[in-house]
């Protein structure tokens, strides 16, 4: 596909009611890894007017390009994964009851009693287990395994679902100033930020925007997207856990929080999949300091982002990640601060406007 491009808005992107409304549509949509169609459609509708070229590749990635008008441009790939963790129905046990497996990293202890939606029709259902009336004290000490849980659609829902359908949490986004609570903030925040970056694309770079699939099952979409774009610099914009709660042992300092809410965008130096390019880390930190944007260094920890796939593409791509800190990631309801979201978008935007080819020399 290609389209007539509208001039990009040269003003700094900001977060307002319009963005919160779009984030709500993105978070409430279902895009469990491997079937990202709902989110892909929203993305395509939103970005079409602002790109020189848009295509959907063989795996389902949305690859959009905004060509800068200035000379001496750097080709920068920014990836935001569209998919979310969720479930897949594995066995029809009759009466609308299905066994299921998890897709991506989900802690099964968090699942009992959660309302979920199933399939493209968003059929309402619940994850059930034996109620307290019938369990023994001994049973309640043990964590339930996924094999012991069922997704129950009720007999009327049975005809609307089949083995292989995806399911996700039924949570609807709530804006709770100064926070937002929703499912799938990992990584619809990255998706909306990338949409905003395309709308306000800087003219000093070629912005290669990849809305990727299948990140949660192993950075698969980004791998082929990076091969296609063959960029000079790679960046993943994502969401990362914040576990900034008090330590359980009151005498001990909490030393493993990953990130903290209200401390701004989280810049990565190392995770399980990538060692960030230090030139890019310096560039982001200098931008933040020059623009007065708060930032934090994500604690080097396991985990991975699309940067893990991008930096290994072809002959190698200097890469980094920036994430919005999110409490309770990969659960039915996660929580962010709107300020952290806004500052993440601001940081990446300003960093891009300052980017020159000299960064790679």
């Amino acid at each position, binding site marked *: 596909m290609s389209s007539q491009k509208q001039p990009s808005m040269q003003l700094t992107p900001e977060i307002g009611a319009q963005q919160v409304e779009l984030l709500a549509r993105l978070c409430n949509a279902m895009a469990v890894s491997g079937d990202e169609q709902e989110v892909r459609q929203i993305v395509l509708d939103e970005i079409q007017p602002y790109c020189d070229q848009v295509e959907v590749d063989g795996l389902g990635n949305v690859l959009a390009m905004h060509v800068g008008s200035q000379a001496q441009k750097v080709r920068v790939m920014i990836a935001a994964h569209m998919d979310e963790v969720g479930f897949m129905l594995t066995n029809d046990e009759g009466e609308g009851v299905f066994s299921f497996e998890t897709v991506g990293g989900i802690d099964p202890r968090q699942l009992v009693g959660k309302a979920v939606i199933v399939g493209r029709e968003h059929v309402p259902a619940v994850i059930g287990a034996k109620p307290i009336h019938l369990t023994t004290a001994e049973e309640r000490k043990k964590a339930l395994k996924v094999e012991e849980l069922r997704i129950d659609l009720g007999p009327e829902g049975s005809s609307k679902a089949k083995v292989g359908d995806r399911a996700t949490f039924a949570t609807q986004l709530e804006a709770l100033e100064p926070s937002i609570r929703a499912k799938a903030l990992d990584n619809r925040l990255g998706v909306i930020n990338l949409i905003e970056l395309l709308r306000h694309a800087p003219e000093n770079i070629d912005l290669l925007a990849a809305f990727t699939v299948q990140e949660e099952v192993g950075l698969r979409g980004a791998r082929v997207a990076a091969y296609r774009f063959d960029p*000079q610099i790679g960046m993943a914009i994502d969401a990362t856990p914040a576990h900034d709660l008090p330590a359980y042992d009151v005498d001990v*300092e909490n*030393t*493993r929080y990953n990130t903290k809410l209200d401390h701004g965008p989280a810049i990565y*130096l*190392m995770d399980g999949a990538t*060692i*960030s390019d*230090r030139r890019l*880390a310096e560039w982001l930190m200098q931008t933040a300091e020059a623009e007065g944007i708060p930032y934090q*260094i994500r*604690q*080097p*920890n*396991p985990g991975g982002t699309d940067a893990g796939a991008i*930096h*290994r*593409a*072809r*002959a*190698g*791509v*200097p890469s980094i990640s920036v994430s919005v800190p999110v409490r309770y990631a990969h659960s039915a309801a996660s929580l962010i601060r709107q300020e952290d979201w806004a500052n993440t978008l601001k940081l990446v935007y300003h960093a891009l406007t300052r980017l020159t080819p000299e960064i*790679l020399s």
Partner: protein
Amino acid sequence: MSIEAKKIEQDDALLALIKKMVETPGPSGQEQLIRAAILEEIQGSADEIRTDAMGNLIARKGSKQPNGLRIMISAHMDEIGLMVTHVDENGFSRFIPIGGVSPLTCIGGRVIFMNGQRGVIGCERLEPNALPTLEKLFIDVGTTSREDCPVKVGDVCGFERPFLDLGKHLVAKSMDNRISVVVAIAALRTLQASPHEVYFVFSVQEEVGLRGSATAAYGVDPDVGLAVDVTRTGDTPRTTKMEVALDKGPAIKVRDSSFIADPRVVDWMIATAKAADIPYQMEVLEAGGTDGRSIQLARAGVPAGCLSIPCRYIHTPSEMVSRADFEDAIRLLVELLSREVKLG
């Protein structure tokens, strides 16, 4: 100068080179110092030298003759190390490993940060008979508060331990893989009149997943590839069984847990060693991987193998290799690259 005197002088120079290479810090992702040190040693010996997007140092020697191939030699220049994750209110730094670091070899160890700051590794109180985990360990750089601590989150350090020459055997904290780096440097300097276009790659980020050699192999696009790396031995008391031992020559890898060496490459290595009367041993490594895997899987696939230097106590501060094995590895690599190659 007599031949003996000349040999001693060359040996001393080689030992000085090993010392320089093993004592330069360079954990994965922080290869700038070791890269500069290697560059200093190879300048003038190569026809072309470049650093790629990932930081791999790539030196070309020779150009492809009608009967020659494009051959990639990969010796990773990174080493294991630590990265700081948190500095607490009393100035103690928590960390995570870069590559495979055992908590057992950390306690009491000394580290050096990339900016030269030194520190020691301490451990929390352990339950009786409990083994330490990395979460129980911390780095003490001799300050008493977070504010005064010269170390911050994301700073990287390597282990610090001086080179030790035991005569027959040589010991250092980073024989993995600086001994192979020296093998590659020596081969690059020695190689004359080869029909091949040889790319000596000093690769980055091997210890975190063979990352540098993967992108280097894409860039070089070789006809055949060889990793040069260390391999473990089975010649110490009550260790896991393995055929490889020190002092029996460089090892020709048949497989490890990351890849199966191309049998044509294995045959080529055996035939070359036999013809040149260089001792060698066959290696089957049950756990471990090398750049051979990433070269093999580059682009549409590359016949690849690995020349291994037997090494005791890998990933401890005292990795031990045999001087004879090291010298034979250089001879074998030069022989491999000097003649026409016909893969089965």
